[in-house]
């Protein structure tokens, strides 16, 4: 059967498709709230039915067939779960090495994959009166630290991609120095992929700085660099990412998030 590509999709739908396709089958995947939740569900419904989702509130390996959870702690995360205690148990098994991949979002990122989800404004000086106070770490920083790998999903805008973060909530490769994570006492290997509304990005093996891997439909190397507040490494083998299929967009719109809880028509800033 030939694949049919969708011609009408939003950038949020694109990012969910890109995120889902990045997830390998049969791995234990610790999913943060928001778009990761949608992408993991899409992956399960397409190429990766053997994914074992873990939610920080306690559910391990549930079937997500009862509707999109509106929270990583709600009833829909618990259906046919294979383990179900609480937050401590979920994070402990992650610290122990049972979570292959952490799948998280963030509001601001730097070239080393460090993330900010705490505040915009001068830190530490204006901590008590930030320009914008964000919701806070939640479990994202724990996943970034202790899942064996992390995949980051975020909106691609210049103001979100900065050489220096306002506040480091979730550690990536820290200052990029050799073995920086090991030396800091971290156990996971760090971010492998950053999936944005414009590109698939990775990290250079030596410098640990962000590099472009693939351009999403409608984007070019130039448009992506222009939307990034720091210089990206652009290897020779950058490729164009395969567009969403009709089936993928159908699943997102009709099956996974019909009410548009996480996948909005437009992205609010």
């Amino acid at each position: 059967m030939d694949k049919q590509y969708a011609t009408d999709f939003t950038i949020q739908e694109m990012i969910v498709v890109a995120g889902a396709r990045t997830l390998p089958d049969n791995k234990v995947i610790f999913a943060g709230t928001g778009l990761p939740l949608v992408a993991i569900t899409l992956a399960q419904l397409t190429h990766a039915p053997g994914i074992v989702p873990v939610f920080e509130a306690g559910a391990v390996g549930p079937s997500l067939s009862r509707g999109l959870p509106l929270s990583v702690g709600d009833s829909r995360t618990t259906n046919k779960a294979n383990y179900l205690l609480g937050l401590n148990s979920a994070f402990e098994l992650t610290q122990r090495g049972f979570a292959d991949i952490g799948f998280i979002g963030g509001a601001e990122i730097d070239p080393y994959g460090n993330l900010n989800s705490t505040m915009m404004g001068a830190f530490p000086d204006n901590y008590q009166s930030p320009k914008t106070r964000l919701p806070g770490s939640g479990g994202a920083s724990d996943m970034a630290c202790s899942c064996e790998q992390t995949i980051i999903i975020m909106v691609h805008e210049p103001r979100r991609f900065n050489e220096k973060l306002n506040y480091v909530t979730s550690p990536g490769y820290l200052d990029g120095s050799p073995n920086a994570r090991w030396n800091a006492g971290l156990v996971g290997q760090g971010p492998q992929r950053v999936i944005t509304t414009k590109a698939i990005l990775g990290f250079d093996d030596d410098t640990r700085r962000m590099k472009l891997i693939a351009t999403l439909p409608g984007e070019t190397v130039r448009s992506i660099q222009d939307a990034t507040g720091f210089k990206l490494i652009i290897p020779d083998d950058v490729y164009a990412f395969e567009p969403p299929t009709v089936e993928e967009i159908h699943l997102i719109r009709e099956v996974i998030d019909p009410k548009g809880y996480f996948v909005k028509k437009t992205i609010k800033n």
Partner: protein
Amino acid sequence: MHWTGLSPDEARKFTADKNKSKRDKRKSLHDAVQEFINDGDNIGIGGFVNSRQPVSIVHEIIRQGRKDLTLSYQSAGLAVEYLAGAMVLNEEHLNIKRMEFAYWAHEAFGISPLFRYLAENSKLELEDWSNYNMSARFKAGSMGLPFIPCRSPLGSDMIQRNRAKVMECPFTQRPIMLLPASHPNVAIIHVQEADIYGNCRIQGPLFTCPEIAMASAYTIVTCDRLIEHDDMVRFPNRISIPFFAVDAVVEVPFGSYPGNSHGVHYFDEKHIPEFRSVCEQARKGDYSSLKDYYETFIFGVKNTARFMDKIPFSQVQQVQKIESGSRLDAGFTVLE
């Protein structure tokens, strides 16, 4: 070291001296809040975001008013938003002084308008932790340990904004974080089922409710259903909080509404956005809808039963329908 709530040595002494006998602990919600929650308390809040949050207890705290509260929790939505709304309306009646926390927002329902409002206007003393940090701090408290080690978030700026210490592990010679125990003055917890002595049976994620209850000096529990003690102890493996960690038990059906109580009711996807929207208006400077909301749904009602009377029946039916299933032994409602 600056302790909020009780220090580990104070908490140990408090619990050791306590009457731990098995006795009827039913009280009215009014009396429980009156007796166990004081101005200046550090309150440990159960639930997770908008699931099994102790909404009815929070409404009663708001009705009675309390000053200079410290709120300790990992991720909260409604419980903290309701307290914040009361503070925005009248700081003389109720105010939050400090928060030790990881996340305040509503996930799919959006960010917290009142958190932005209070934080961006320097109204709160904030201590940043991760979800695991706060869960582990309660766990250390529940275990009677002054601290617990943790591997995250080493390398983050949070360490500058909290009381964790980084030390070299004496066994592996690698850095490790030590998190100070949390011992709130009082835990407020909503569960599906409890007996009159305070034993609690939880369905679905436990969140960090058992640890918060065991760590705190006092614990107030509301439950959707009060069940017979004989039924409770037929399944001892199902008891998540033992009676001696509980000081007051109140049967409050819909005690976590409009949030989710697993196997009892789902989120009210209509009421939560409505409440959030009046909060958003307040953030933007228009307090009238917020004031109306509080007068209608909190100050204008005596208790949760009267609060529920104000909710259209079709909405209540809908949140129950989503979670309906077969009620089996050992307190399990299984959706087929």
